[in-house]
């Protein structure tokens, strides 16, 4: 039974006095905005309160890398002034949010979780962040992540690992682990993350929050520090599906600064939530329920699918026969693109430079050696190998051809169904240290998420129960290109019914 959300602000004065409570978990975007609009609270008090909460909780969790107090309080004061004049606040007016550190923020340190950008203070803003702020959002700070978003546990952060708020001995997932943990622990109302192989959906699933990866091209990548440009997506992590719809509506749409951002109209995702789900056809692919799937995850996800069937959806078996080739394809395509993207870190224009290098080439090498962590070096090496003379056809071109097959699998399935339902991750959150010595085992944590990145289709993870150890489980819903409205609607219907 979902607790009621209405009572939150009656408790607020108590909370303001430092009596912190997990009830903060119930604060949604609309609740925060209307409290500020109606002047039940001030946006500045709310931001201050969140900073108190961060000070108290974050030493154990490690979700934030940099706080942006000055910028946050200025935005909050702007929203308070609007409210005081009785003007209508914009859709995210005064709402405290967190931003993954791979998105650049003007004047606020942006490290991408890497030592090589340890002191980097960007001179410009990421489009998605600028759109959030234009809609009134108060950016509290920058969240921890795996270095350059490369990882599935957040243990590859050069600064510190993030711990799962539900169980501090476990990982929050990755790479947007800080964003997921911040939302789950009530240290932000909502957050932006990025997803290249599952990095929004998998941590959302591990931390018990909602995570949405939009269609490739739906949200501008301008100002997103690039990992793999044909696979990188920005999207929201939120407490509710409606909040995810609100954030997507805010950040979606064509941006002249990113030529791959699509000129496709942005529907009102929030209004679309109200449409019925009855009669929608949901595909269930046996490839996502096979070997390696944890028993408790399976039963929760199957129960969630039954619940959707109970709401009038028709469950249809579909086949995605090339699924087992997704991880190998991904680790060629993503690393090849990464090796090219990360060539820019050379110690010349920004970032770490090794001391006392005698020649230019010595400086490049030593700066990169000192600046990059082990997983980043491993991926640069793998990508460089796959692109090198003699191996290009065997690896890179081969992977691109298989990427076509993986995409065709979805195209075929979507002729028969409106969405595909799967587990988000084969297991619930694992322990810190459990997979750090085995890169391949870590890569397999993304087995149900990577294919959507390769095909560019949207996917959402919505909480669907817990294991016996009280660890959250996520239901993943995948949709057609540019059909976020349908997967949001299904996730919303499920959330309301559970």
């Amino acid at each position, binding site marked *: 039974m979902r607790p009621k959300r209405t009572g939150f602000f009656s408790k607020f004065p108590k909370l303001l006095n430092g009596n912190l409570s997990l009830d903060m978990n119930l604060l949604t975007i609309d609740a925060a905005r209307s409290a500020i609009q109606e002047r039940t609270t001030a946006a500045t008090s709310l931001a201050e309160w969140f900073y108190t909460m961060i000070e108290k909780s974050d030493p154990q969790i490690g979700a934030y890398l940099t706080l942006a107090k000055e910028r946050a309080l200025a935005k909050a004061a702007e929203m308070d002034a609007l409210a005081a004049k009785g003007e209508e606040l914009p859709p995210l007016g005064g709402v405290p949010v967190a931003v993954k550190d791979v998105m650049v923020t003007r004047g606020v340190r942006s490290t991408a979780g890497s030592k090589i950008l340890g*002191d*980097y203070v*960007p*001179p*410009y803003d990421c489009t998605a962040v600028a759109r959030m702020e234009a809609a009134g959002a108060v950016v509290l700070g920058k969240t921890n992540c795996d270095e350059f978003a490369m990882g599935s546990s957040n243990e590859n952060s050069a600064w510190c690992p993030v711990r799962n708020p539900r169980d501090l001995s476990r990982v929050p997932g990755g790479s947007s682990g800080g964003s997921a943990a911040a939302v789950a622990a009530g240290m932000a109302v909502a957050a932006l993350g990025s997803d290249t192989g599952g990095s929004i959906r998998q941590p959302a699933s591990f931390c018990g929050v909602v995570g949405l990866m939009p*269609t490739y*091209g739906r949200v501008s990548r301008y100002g997103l520090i690039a990992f793999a440009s*044909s696979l990188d997506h920005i999207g929201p992590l939120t407490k509710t599906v409606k909040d995810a719809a609100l954030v997507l509506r805010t950040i979606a749409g*064509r941006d*002249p*600064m990113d*030529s*791959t951002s*699509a000129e*496709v109209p942005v529907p009102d995702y929030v209004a679309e939530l109200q449409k019925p789900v009855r009669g929608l056809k949901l595909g269930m692919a046996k490839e996502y329920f096979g070997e390696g799937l944890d028993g408790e995850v399976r039963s929760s996800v199957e129960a969630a699918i039954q619940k959707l069937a109970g709401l009038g959806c028709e469950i249809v078996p579909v086949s995605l026969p*090339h699924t*087992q*080739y997704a991880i*190998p394809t991904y*680790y*060629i395509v993503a690393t090849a693109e990464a*090796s090219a993207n990360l060539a820019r870190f050379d110690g*010349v*224009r920004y*970032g*770490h*430079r090794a001391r006392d290098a*005698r*020649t230019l*080439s010595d400086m*490049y*090498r030593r700066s*990169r*050696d000192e600046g*990059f962590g*082990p997983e980043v*070096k*491993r991926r*640069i*090496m*793998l990508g*460089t*190998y796959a692109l*090198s003379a003699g191996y290009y056809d065997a690896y890179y*071109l*081969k*992977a*691109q*051809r*298989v*990427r*076509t*097959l993986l*995409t065709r699998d979805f195209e075929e399935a979507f002729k028969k169904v409106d969405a595909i339902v799967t587990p988000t991750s084969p297991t619930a959150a694992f322990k810190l240290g459990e997979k750090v010595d085995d*890169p*391949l085992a870590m*890569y397999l944590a993304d087995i149900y998420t990577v294919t959507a990145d390769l095909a*560019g289709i949207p996917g959402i993870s919505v909480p669907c129960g817990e294991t016996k150890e009280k660890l959250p489980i996520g239901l993943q819903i995948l949709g057609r*290109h*540019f059909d976020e409205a349908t997967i949001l609607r299904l996730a919303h219907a499920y959330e309301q019914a559970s």
Partner: protein
Amino acid sequence: MKVTEKDVSYVADLANLELTSEERTRMVRDLNSILGYIDRLNELDTANVPPMAQVSDRYGVDQSKQGSERFAYASREDVHEGLRKSLPHEEALQNAPEADGIFFKVPKVIER
């Protein structure tokens, strides 16, 4: 073993990485393990499958248009002043590890 220590040194060189000897040993092990897994792609006959480099050449475009016409929206007039002003010199240099106020500075490239 597909990848040898020599291959690792060669690729590290291409990637502008040094790698310590321990890092190299570990890299040989990791790359072989990952590439061993990746080899399963060879089970698939892809001779007649076109490669896919981008998602955006398939979706979100006007399907009735062909070639570069499809992406007309993504281009713009070539203008002196672009979509936004260039960064002021000072800001462009503010993150440089070494600069002299006009240029980025690097170790000497050419011996005279």
